[in-house]
């Protein structure tokens, strides 16, 4: 035979799991990581076409254990440990979507999404448009994001703005256990591709989880009502922003905190309604200021309700620097003090 051949070991046997797997049935207190795990499990129970793929998501359960036990429960044809190549993880998900699957790809850390960037912005984002709706890309890309964990380079980044500029994608960032659970289910059920950003440094924070889908993922929510300043945030900074609102209240300032949840599209109706009331806007995120989501929100709100603005909107963000060394990250990340300083500024204090 003329095949240029060499012996191959056997392909891994892919057997379906035996016992039926149960989802969350009652309100439970879960960490953010466990809530995502529960949401993934439910999505996999609901739809046999949901498959997970990524690096170390099987036996290890992911470096953050977000996919713990899912390999045992669903088998290796539903929870796929892939070779180490992000472009291929995304590109393979595209092919699975072509074949009617609903893939959920895990990117191990924020900084490792860039080798997969081309497949995301040139293929995942564009295929539905390119084919005039003939090919759907119901792909969810899970990305632990953000800093504050004292990690090495590339492990603390906030790349979300890159994806909000790529038309065709939806972008979600969750802040607590309930949304972690509900929104991963919504993201997976969505017929559009969704980048789902997980607030890495809040993985271990517990919260009550009602096993429901909840508010549509496109909706922003007011997590702390107020009247004088609108404070827009998402992901890990929601907790910091709530703390800031409490601290501000102590100083007699009334801050309304909005958790965006959806970064693309942004629920401008909700932000606008708040700013029409308060007349003042502060936006905070960990990502660099220039080209970050903050600028987009400030610009859009200025366009929509310029006449209601009583002061220039303020951004409290990471600086325009590569993510710094762990010992310096507190000088980069917005914290309670810097957010309060922003609130002061917008109030002219």
């Amino acid at each position, binding site marked *: 035979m003329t*095949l240029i051949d060499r012996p191959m070991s056997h*392909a891994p046997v892919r057997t379906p799991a035996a016992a039926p797997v149960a989802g969350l049935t009652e309100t439970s207190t879960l960490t953010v990581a466990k809530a995502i795990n529960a949401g993934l499990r439910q999505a996999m129970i609901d739809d046999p076409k949901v498959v997970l793929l990524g690096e170390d998501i099987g036996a290890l359960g992911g470096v953050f254990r977000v996919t713990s036990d899912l390999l045992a429960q669903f088998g290796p044809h539903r929870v796929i440990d892939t070779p180490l190549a992000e472009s291929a993880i995304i*590109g393979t998900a595209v*092919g699975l979507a072509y*074949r009617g699957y609903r893939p959920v790809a895990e990117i191990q850390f924020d900084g490792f999404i860039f080798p997969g960037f081309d497949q995301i912005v040139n293929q995942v984002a564009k295929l539905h448009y*390119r084919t005039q709706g003939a090919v759907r890309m119901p792909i969810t890309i899970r990305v632990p994001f953000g800093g504050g964990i004292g990690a090495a380079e590339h492990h603390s980044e906030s790349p979300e703005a890159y994806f909000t500029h790529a038309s065709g994608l939806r972008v979600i960032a969750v802040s607590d256990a309930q949304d972690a659970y509900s929104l991963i289910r919504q993201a997976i059920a969505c017929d559009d591709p969704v980048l789902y950003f997980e607030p890495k440094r809040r993985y271990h924070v517990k919260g009550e989880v009602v096993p429901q889908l909840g508010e549509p993922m496109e909706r922003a929510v007011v997590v702390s009502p107020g009247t004088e300043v609108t404070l827009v945030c998402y992901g890990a900074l929601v907790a910091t922003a709530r703390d800031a609102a409490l601290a501000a209240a102590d100083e007699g300032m009334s801050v309304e905190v909005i958790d965006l949840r959806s970064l693309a599209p942004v629920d401008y109706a909700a932000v606008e309604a708040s700013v029409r009331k308060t007349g003042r806007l502060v936006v905070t995120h960990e990502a660099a200021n220039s080209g970050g989501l903050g600028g987009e929100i400030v610009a859009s709100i200025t366009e929509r309700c310029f006449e209601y603005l009583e002061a220039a909107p303020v951004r409290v963000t990471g600086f325009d620097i590569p993510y710094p060394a762990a010992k310096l990250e507190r000088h980069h990340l917005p914290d309670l003090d810097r957010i309060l300083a922003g609130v002061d500024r917008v109030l002219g204090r």
Partner: protein
Amino acid sequence: MTAISTDFIQLLSPLGERMPHADFDPWLADIDTAALAALYEDMVVVRRIDTEATALQRQGELGLWPPLLGQEAAQIGSARALRDDDYVFPSYRENGVAYCRGVGLTDLVKVWRGSAQSGWDPASVRMATPAIIIGAQTLHATGWALGARFDGADSVAVTYFGDGATSEGDVNEALVFAASFQVPVVFFCQNNQWAISEPVGVQAHADIASRAPGFGIPSLRVDGNDVLAVMAATRIALDRARTGNGPTFIEAVTYRMGPHTTADDPTRYRDPADLAAWGRRDPVLRLRALLERLGHLTPEFEAQIAARADAVAAELRAGCIALPDPPALSVFDHVYATPHAGLDRQRDEYAGYLAGFDAAPTEPTAATQPVASTPKGSL
């Protein structure tokens, strides 16, 4: 002039001699003279499509066209080996493959006329639309094949790409994934000796076919201008895939006899002697010579083929010219599969803006805007 490597499998010599081959011949047992005639018709027709589309481009009806001239055997031989339920993930040059899959002639040129970003519904012909990002489609094929394996189906994904594409990370990652998961995919590389202006020696100092075995994927190197060698190799690869033996890599050694696209000028970089040498290895003439040897090349047969090619060309031309311009607001369609507040707002605003123009048609004049009305450009 560059020497032509002939270290490949050949069943049909440039002179049209049928050369026996113990391993490959069994895969062609059903290819009788009628089948050869059908392959010949395919090759003549797709060459004619190519010529017509090139003419349409020269006449300003198409913005661009990537000719397959010289690669007819590689495309017809492989595409005619496929089953309906297989799935093709091509680059931009696989117009011959698309023809075999049943893509409508007008659909073939829609994208090059600039009427749409792709010409057909992939599901209807089980062939994705052209991938312009070099190599990206090889991963899609691998993912599709993984799904087929999960489904227990015996359908196969076949992905086409060029010699230049083998340098891209994506193609190599596709080999890694395909080997790791042992999925039913055929990597079909048309080594047409050029990536635009760069000869294949810039991409690789070893044969392209020797790449795959190092990834644990067996490979075949065939004369890509020999429709029979190509077909047999593809059938072997498909059979391996269908029977659970995983991926196979095929290098079809051929030659891009035309420019890279109609926007290209090969005289800047190509030795005319090379072209002449490869002309003597023409895939269509070669099959024609075999049919002649077999006594099948009657005037009736030739007339029939010519008529068919003429009819196809006429249909292509008429369909191309009749293609309607897409309506203005369709620019917003299908960005998302589900409603999107931000985009809806932009659509509404733009609709209002267009409606604000007094003169019919309700579109901006953009007199000073130097946007070409017919597309041009490179690939």
